């Protein structure tokens, strides 16, 4: 019998519906795989085997009657930043070790409504702050990919490194993830998987552990563009429990996959050709342009003049929002509480120093600084103004183009530990992805080729607000042209 774990989400759903195999069989295949591989890859921080089998059996009952939702019986991995009722949710932090939410996030509630099965909670950078999964309190996740001729362990990217690694190594059919500056798309690019961040407001933030609320958005990491369209639809919904949730219908994006891109105008922004971009990434980008041209797209050179300011603006806005959001962790009502303290202030400060890791502390300190009296206007308000400039850049080109093509990341996956020395080098990972978070636009990363070292590289498609349809359409055309079928050689 074929290895069920290698199926795409789409094929698995078809197989379940056709009763070629049961959800219980499929779920057991994944649980066996996780048991064997997870000690090495560290993608899951908790495996919910009993819950998974229960859900799978319930799905099989429905499937037997020809009933069931859009994801009926499909085993998924859940990033550990989505609150799951009765299942520990830590956001990769010692601060939340042992935290068991008494409620369910809206995104995961939507998945269970549609019949999905939860295999477990996926590792991530602490509070989603990181680009290499090295800030997790549970230790780094390993990328199933290794460079040709090298045994060095690579990062799967971050912050959704557990999600990306699990999907790439067939430890789930697909996974939920979240993206504040590139945390879905960068790990997807590093692992040869597909990841989409939808328009801000499409997916409810209720029950997602908050990092930077005006930027955070949930989305899926999957094996194919079709799978991303299927899972994203289930994840998105209007939700009164999130004041920024958009009260609009969620389209069936699978309809956009495979639709001709002939006549679509694709923007290629000059400013994304950054100093020091490797020849490989340049060539990949050019290849993407050629593929779309061949598919009938019109290529339009565009300018997004404020691009280079997106990252520094982000590193004011995101830490500022984080310093406000994470003020809730005071050791009083939930989360870690220090044992040794000399005063109330000291109890807060000691609890937070013990509970938060180094990168989180660094960002909270920056956030407190840029919001403090005397610096608020010079840093925070200034960054918000630059944010508008960046958004206007996009507004100015939408009359001329239907979507924008860029690389997803400036490099392929790097060695674990390689960029820990200097936070700035790490921050540069998000240089191509962070603009869409600031502007609230949808962006997808599609695997498009291999580096000379044999590592996956991704291309990003950015769309207009609420126009995920065109994003999926173009992404599918790229997927089709790239014919990316490479898989990491199993070493784990």
């Amino acid at each position: 019998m074929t290895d069920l774990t290698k199926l795409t989400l789409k094929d698995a759903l078809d197989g379940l519906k056709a009763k070629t195999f049961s959800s219980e069989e499929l779920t057991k295949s994944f649980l066996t795989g996780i048991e064997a591989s997870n000690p090495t890859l560290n993608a899951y921080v908790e495996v919910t085997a009993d819950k998974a089998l229960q859900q799978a059996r319930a799905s099989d009952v429905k499937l037997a009657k020809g009933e069931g939702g859009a994801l009926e019986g499909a085993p998924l991995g859940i990033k550990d930043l989505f609150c799951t009722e009765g299942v520990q949710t830590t956001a990769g932090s010692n601060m939340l070790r042992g935290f068991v939410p008494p409620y369910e996030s809206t995104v995961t509630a939507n998945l269970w409504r549609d019949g999905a099965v939860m295999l477990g909670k996926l590792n991530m950078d602490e509070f989603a702050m990181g680009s290499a999964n090295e800030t997790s309190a549970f230790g780094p996740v390993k990328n199933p990919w290794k460079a040709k001729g090298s045994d060095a362990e690579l990062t799967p990217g971050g912050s959704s490194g557990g999600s990306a690694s699990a999907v790439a190594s067939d430890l789930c059919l697909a996974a939920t993830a979240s993206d504040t500056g590139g945390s879905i798309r960068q790990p997807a690019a590093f692992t040869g998987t597909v990841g989409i961040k939808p328009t801000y407001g499409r997916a409810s933030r209720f029950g997602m552990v908050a990092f930077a609320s005006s930027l955070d958005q949930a989305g899926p990491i999957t094996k194919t563009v079709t799978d991303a369209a299927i899972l994203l639809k289930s994840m998105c919904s209007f939700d009164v429990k999130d004041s920024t949730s958009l009260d609009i219908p969620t389209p069936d994006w699978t309809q956009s996959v495979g639709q001709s891109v002939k006549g679509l105008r694709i923007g290629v922004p000059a400013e994304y050709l950054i100093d020091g971009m490797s020849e490989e990434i340049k060539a990949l980008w050019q290849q993407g342009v050629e593929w779309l041209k061949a598919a009938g797209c019109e290529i339009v050179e565009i300018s997004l003049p404020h691009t280079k300011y997106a990252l520094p603006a982000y590193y004011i806005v995101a830490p500022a929002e984080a310093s406000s959001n994470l003020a809730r962790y005071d050791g009083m009502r939930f989360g870690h509480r220090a044992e040794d303290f000399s005063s109330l202030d000291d109890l807060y400060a000691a609890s937070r120093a013990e509970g938060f890791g180094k990168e989180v502390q660094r960002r909270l300190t920056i956030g407190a600084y840029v919001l403090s009296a005397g610096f608020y206007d010079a840093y925070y308000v200034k960054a918000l103004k630059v944010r508008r400039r960046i958004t206007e850049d996009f507004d100015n080109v939408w009359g001329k183009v239907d979507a924008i093509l860029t690389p997803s990341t400036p490099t392929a996956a790097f060695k674990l530990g390689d960029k820990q020395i200097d936070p700035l080098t790490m921050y540069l990972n998000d240089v191509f992805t962070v603009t869409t978070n600031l502007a609230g636009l949808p962006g997808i990363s599609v695997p498009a080729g291999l580096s000379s070292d044999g590592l996956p590289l991704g291309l990003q498609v950015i769309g207009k607000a609420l126009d995920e349809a065109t994003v999926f359409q173009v992404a599918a055309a790229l997927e089709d042209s790239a014919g990316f079928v490479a898989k990491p050689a199993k070493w784990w």
Partner: protein
Amino acid sequence: MAIDAATVRRVAHLARIKTPEDRLEPLAQELNGILNWIEQLNEVDVQGVEPMTSNVAQPLRLREDVVTDGAKVDAVLSNAPKSADGFFVVPKVVE
């Protein structure tokens, strides 16, 4: 606007993060590195630009001012480091 150890001590207090004295200087250097890089924002002409706090095109919704949730004492207290008789228990902080 270079940050020194005294500034780090002040900001760490604002952020309520206990920071040992010997960490202040290295942190000051790190933060200066990041803030120097951020200084490039000063190149952008933002004359007359409104600060952008949200990228949601719709106005915030209003709802009726009624209770929609509650009576969940056990759930609320379920993750408390310490609780008793329906209350959070915190260490004695007033002498």
